[in-house]
């Protein structure tokens, strides 16, 4: 595999990990979040700072990074207990802008210069780069997707589904909205934090704009295109939206225009996503294979 393809594939896998976290919050628990890039950024910045300022290895820092991300996720998940729907959507946009501003304007976080000189990850004395780093990311993706799969099978996940469908009815069967919303935020932001740590060690240089609000929109678009709440949606969405700009590269000037046009067409004509219940792919499948559409 060429270096170019490996780079794209690695970014796609990292994005898929982050979008899995978003799927837990939005797809499973039904709490809209338009600020997921902030948590991605918090993971990346804490990994970068622990590596460059504290001199910790990736592996030593990882538990800390995930803890920091999920604690911040817990704090920033608190508004979801007070506001809902559109209010929550705009609140999370606000959180994204504020977190980005903190990275950009506070010298501790490198300010406008960002943080550079982040070391590579070592495993068994091997410095991971290129294909070996891709494999590491892939291993983490398998881990995260397994966790997501288990989440949909366990009581915690079922409680989140119930909350997503109807909060009052969920409470009437013993589900504490506070406990399970925060649980989803913690799990989802922990995954974003893991993705952020991988991103920081892969790029080896990060700055605030890597985690700005448009990134959150891209992450959410991946999830919606894949199919909100579906296990494989994050990977599918990350592949499509990760590959499209590369496919359109020959269009040079018109690349972004085509990208946005495709995004608009997909959301307009497949609003429940490619794996969603009303998707074209499913309808076709249902016709070809009896019962295959379920």
């Amino acid at each position, binding site marked *: 595999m060429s270096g170019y393809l490996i780079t794209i594939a690695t970014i796609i896998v990292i994005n898929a990990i982050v979008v899995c976290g978003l799927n837990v919050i939005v797809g499973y628990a039904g709490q809209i979040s*338009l600020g997921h890039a902030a948590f991605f950024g918090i993971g990346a910045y804490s990994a970068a700072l622990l590596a460059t300022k504290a001199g910790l290895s990736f592996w030593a820092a990882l538990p800390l990074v995930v803890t920091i991300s999920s604690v911040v996720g817990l704090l920033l998940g608190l508004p979801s207990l007070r506001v809902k729907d559109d209010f929550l959507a705009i609140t999370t*946009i606000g959180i994204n802008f504020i977190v980005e501003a903190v990275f950009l304007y506070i010298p501790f976080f490198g300010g406008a210069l960002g943080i550079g000189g982040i070391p590579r990850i070592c495993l068994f004395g091997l410095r991971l780069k290129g294909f070996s780093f891709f494999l590491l990311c892939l291993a983490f993706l398998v881990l995260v997707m397994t966790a997501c799969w288990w989440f949909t099978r366990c009581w915690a996940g079922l409680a989140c589904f119930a909350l997503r469908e109807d909060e009052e009815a969920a409470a009437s069967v013993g589900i504490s909205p506070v406990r399970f919303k925060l649980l989803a935020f913690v799990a989802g932001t922990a995954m974003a934090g893991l993705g952020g740590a991988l991103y920081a060690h892969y790029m080896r240089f990060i700055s605030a704009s890597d985690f700005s609000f448009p990134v959150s929109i891209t992450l959410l678009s991946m999830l919606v295109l894949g199919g909100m709440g579906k296990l494989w949606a994050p990977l599918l969405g990350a592949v499509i939206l990760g590959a499209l700009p590369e496919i359109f590269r020959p269009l040079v000037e018109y690349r972004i*225009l085509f990208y*946005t046009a495709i995004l608009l067409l997909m959301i307009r004509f497949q609003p429940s996503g490619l794996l969603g219940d009303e998707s074209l792919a499913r309808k076709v499948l249902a016709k070809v294979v009896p019962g295959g559409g379920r």
Partner: protein
Amino acid sequence: MHLFIEQLLNGIAMGSIYALVTLGLALVYGILRILHVAHAAIYTVGAYVGLAVFKFTGSLWLGFGGAMVFCSVLGVAIERLVYYPLLKYPPYVPLIGSIAVMLGIEELCRLVAGPYILTFPARLPFAAVHLGSVTISSTLMAVYAITALVLAVLWYITSRTEMGLAMRATSQDMAIADAMGINSHQVVSATFVLGSSIAAVAGVLVGIYYNQVYPTMGAVPAYKTLALIVVGGMGSVPGAVIASLLLGVAETLLIGYAQIPLPRDALAFIAMIAVLMWRSEGLLGSK
């Protein structure tokens, strides 16, 4: 004191401009419950069309008129082609559609007019006003006067015309409005015409005020205005105006006096989260 009054005047102008952009968003949210982020792209298009018509005809008023007509058509097109079919889906679906529309329009502006900053060399026919030692420049006067005019017209339409009544009924409850014989789809389109025209006025005005027109001029207003409609109380037009004026003044004064480390663009969101935690329905909202 002198400096303070000048800052205050600038702040009110800034707030007036925010208000003009936020109005359309508040109107659309009030009626469709959609976060119409692409509204900011309509405002950008307004600035470009206004500039083009002005350059072609030499008349600023034709520039305003042309921008309003073009933006109205664009607004209604977005409503019919993108929002209307997506209304039954969860709110993030039309929101993503809206953001895609905004990015696409920004790109189109860049491709058609070029990525650079264009100047808008028009003079607004307003006289500067001298109050003692303080001078209100002609551009500031123009911003005040045009904002006041727009607000007056908007007030007249919503409170004194049949269409305005239908709009208010539809924003209360679309199903009931339908049952009362109001053609709610027509009312929604009228709302987009109204909101987009105001955005066009705002675009031209901002182009002249800063003497700058560029493709991404809508990027910051796009999201800041979301914070403003929350602070004002979702869909409340007077609330949106008050929130915009407060923010314009607060931003200008904070930049002028306090050396806070946070950028002013985050201020709107900090204010918003503070308001939400304190009064989750916004300044003038109802639960």
